[in-house]
């Protein structure tokens, strides 16, 4: 070959090598292996320590003496509740103490017959230990960098008032995915309580694509784990295009997927029992996902959530409801009501101007998976619920919207604990294409 020909050949090779790869459709699928409220932890270690988020540390045990004090409840009455609610009575463990306490905690209003979990405004605000730090994860939902928190990466204007209200709580505080309920909820999710899949697709390049699509939905498949409990990558999961399915347009820049436009995103609630499962809708939602070099996914989803729905779930679901929260989790439902209302910062009611939404963000991680469509319709089972829970949630909503006290409806003993048996057990499970049920469920303790 002549020198000129050699030079020409070399130049051609270099030119070909420098030409970018042609754009082609691409897909990335993930099974979510961790999911929880994005509550920033401002201490160095543990879950209880004082930190920049909560200078007094995590919320302590409730003082039931103080909680039960009302104008109509005498000290003798309080003692009558608390004495049998002590750990032991005459040397015998008092197994009924939690129920005795819960039954009394339910009534803390200005009159003894008012159920203050339904009518929390009938009692004064006992005060909430709120987050006072300046750092939070989330999104600038109101596009105002002057309000809100600063993100850990320095982004201003982060709106996450749910964190402000709940972030010092004993059940929620800790480093990412290490709080008490965070670890418990994720353990149950991986055990089969529910599964979330995310599929990101585009036409150009997964690192940079202006026309990407993000799909978020439930999967009926049980999440596959190895013996050590870690989710195994590369398994196949169907995405259920049921009511819980969301499809969004997004842009990807340097591997970071951002959904814009403010559509609603429907996600599972943070849950650890079958009967506190359900969905939460992020209104005017934002989504940010990182497609990591190790093929995993990390992300945030945020928006405004209905604060009354949030209170209702916390208070009236059968498992881990108000009674458990005010004993085991050191919460105060009345304080929570006032704090949620006070910190509600979005979705103003067009008639009253009252903010119906509170800003929130959830964090998640995902493991690489094949997310596929199903050739047959797939439904997701509705969560089991007691007869009483929806009733009481509706009563609370009506009471809090009108500030009119709603009297106790007739209640049978133990009604709150009733879970109706499925009429047909088969209907309550999700089926795969072979007609075999695949979904696990949990129940109250």
């Amino acid at each position, binding site marked *: 070959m002549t020198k000129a020909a050699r030079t020409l050949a070399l130049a051609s090779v270099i030119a070909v090598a420098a030409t970018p790869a042609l754009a082609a459709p691409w897909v990335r699928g993930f099974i979510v292996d961790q999911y929880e409220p994005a509550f920033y932890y401002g201490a160095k*270690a*543990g*879950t*209880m*320590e004082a930190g920049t988020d909560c200078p007094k540390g*995590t919320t302590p*045990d409730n003082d039931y003496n103080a909680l039960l004090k009302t104008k109509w409840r005498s000290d003798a009455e309080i003692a009558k509740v608390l004495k049998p609610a002590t*750990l*032991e009575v005459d*040397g*015998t*463990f008092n*197994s009924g103490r939690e129920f005795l306490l819960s039954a009394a905690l339910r009534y803390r209003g200005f009159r003894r017959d008012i159920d203050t979990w339904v009518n929390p405004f009938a009692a004064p605000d006992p005060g909430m230990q709120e987050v006072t730090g300046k750092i939070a994860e989330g999104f600038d939902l109101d596009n105002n960098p002057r309000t809100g928190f600063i993100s850990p990466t320095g982004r201003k204007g982060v709106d996450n008032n749910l964190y402000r209200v709940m972030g010092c709580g*004993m059940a929620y505080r800790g480093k990412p995915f290490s709080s*008490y309920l965070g*670890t*418990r909820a994720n*353990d*149950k999710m991986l*055990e*089969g309580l529910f599964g979330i899949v995310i599929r990101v697709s585009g036409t150009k390049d997964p690192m940079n694509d202006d026309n990407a699509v993000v799909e978020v939905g439930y999967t009926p498949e049980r999440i596959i784990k*190895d*013996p*050590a*409990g870690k989710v195994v990558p590369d398994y196949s999961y169907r995405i259920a295009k049921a009511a819980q399915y969301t499809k969004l347009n997004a842009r990807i820049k340097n591997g970071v997927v951002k959904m814009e436009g403010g559509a609603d995103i429907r996600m599972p609630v943070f849950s650890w*029992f*079958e009967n506190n499962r359900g969905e939460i809708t992020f209104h005017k939602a934002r989504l940010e996902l990182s497609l990591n070099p190790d093929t995993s996914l990390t992300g945030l989803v945020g928006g405004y959530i209905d604060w009354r729905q949030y209170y209702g779930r916390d208070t009236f679901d059968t498992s881990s409801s108000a009674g458990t929260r005010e004993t*085991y989790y*050191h919460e105060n439902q009345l304080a929570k009501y006032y704090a949620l209302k006070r910190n509600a910062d979005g979705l103003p009611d067009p008639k009253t101007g009252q903010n119906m939404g509170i800003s929130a963000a959830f964090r998640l991680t995902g493991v690489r998976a094949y997310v596929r469509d199903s050739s047959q319709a797939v439904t997701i089972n509705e969560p089991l619920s007691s007869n009483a829970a929806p009733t009481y949630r509706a009563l609370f909503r009506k009471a809090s919207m009108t500030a009119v006290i709603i009297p106790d409806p007739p209640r049978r003993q133990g009604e709150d604990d009733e879970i109706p048996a499925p009429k047909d057990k088969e209907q309550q*499970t999700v089926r795969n294409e072979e007609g075999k*049920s*695949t*979904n*696990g*469920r*949990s*129940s*109250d*303790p």
Partner: protein
Amino acid sequence: MRFNRRSLLRGLSQGCAVSVALPFLDCFLDGNGTALAATAERIPTRFGTYFWGCGLTKELYLPKAVGQGYEMTPQLKSLSAYQKKINLISGLRAFADDNPNIQHWTGVAAISTGMAPSKDREFETQTIDQTIAGAIGHGTRFKSLAVACSGNKNESYSSLGGPNTNPPDVSPVGLYTRLFGPGFQDPSKGDWKPDPKVLLEQSALSVVDEDRKSLMQNVGAGDKARLEQYFTSVRELEQTMAAELQRPDIVAQVSIPSAPGEMPVNKSVPTLRKVVPVMAKLVALGLATDQTRVVNVALAEPASTIFMPGDSKPFHQATHEEPIDPALGYQPVTSQFSTYSMEMFAELVKALDDIKEGDGTLLDHSLILAYTDTGFAKLHTLEAIPMLLAGSASGRVKTGFHIAGEGGPVTRVGLTVQQAMGLAVESWGKASMETKKPITEILA
């Protein structure tokens, strides 16, 4: 006519056939007056369970070493003297499959029945002790016994399936009365003879038998199933009575103590420390005197509420409320309760090992399955549920091992136990927990 200790005198009583066992005669002994001549029988192998709730603390119980000679960890320290007679099995998991993870119950049922339960506090089938009792429990006064150390009559994990739980004895006095009260004759005493009342009852049952057969032929399938279950109990009663008419062979070196005094029974740890040794000794005596060959001891319920006086929370509540100490990596108060649970198990192991029997001890001729409901109570996990086996089942089980289960199903232990007890079972468990893999490392 040659007689041996099993020979029966037969005759008629008021028109009914009656059989009467012989009292123990010197001619039944060998020349040394010890072992049973000609019809000498082996020392029976016994089975038992010990249940405690809310698991153990991984950081404090799990040895690093696997196999024999593993290091004895802080939470198992109370069992140190018996390390060579026990096996520790770690790392096995329960599967809920299509059923919910019923908190503080799925683990219990998975280990004791091989099946994930569909209802809280009910088993889908009979528990393993009943399966084994069905094979070895006939011929004793009681097919099996259940004991609730905390005094709660609801705390029994021995079941025929569904809601049919075997009720426990809930106090030392109650257990003593059952074992050594009315109806008991000390087999080591020379004046032992069959109870005439039992003879009459037995003969009455044999009359009923003809009517029973006739009834079964004339009822529908549903009633037949109910009657079967009922008459199974009757048949067991018959067998019990037959056993009561025969003097038990006792090889163990025991004597029946006088009845314990009344004592408080509750979930306070100091109380349990007094009650459990007494209950354990009675359980051991019951096994040693062949009143039964299957026992179930429950320390407390799965969501264990044992407590220390003065503390503000019992065990279960502590598992949820106590944070993990960032320096220690575990919950210190919660882990203490787990340690107490092992100390109580050590009392049972001690009581069995204290009884000399043949060339070993009662423990050597027993197999006790100690199990719990969860691997990590704070989260109600079904992974890495710890279990222990005490005793060598009369040489059928090798001991002194730490077996790392590596994520396999908990039913491997149940399968191993049944094979060790001589049951012809090749697989056990349902769905994800069906296994054909016993723990061969410990099967002799």
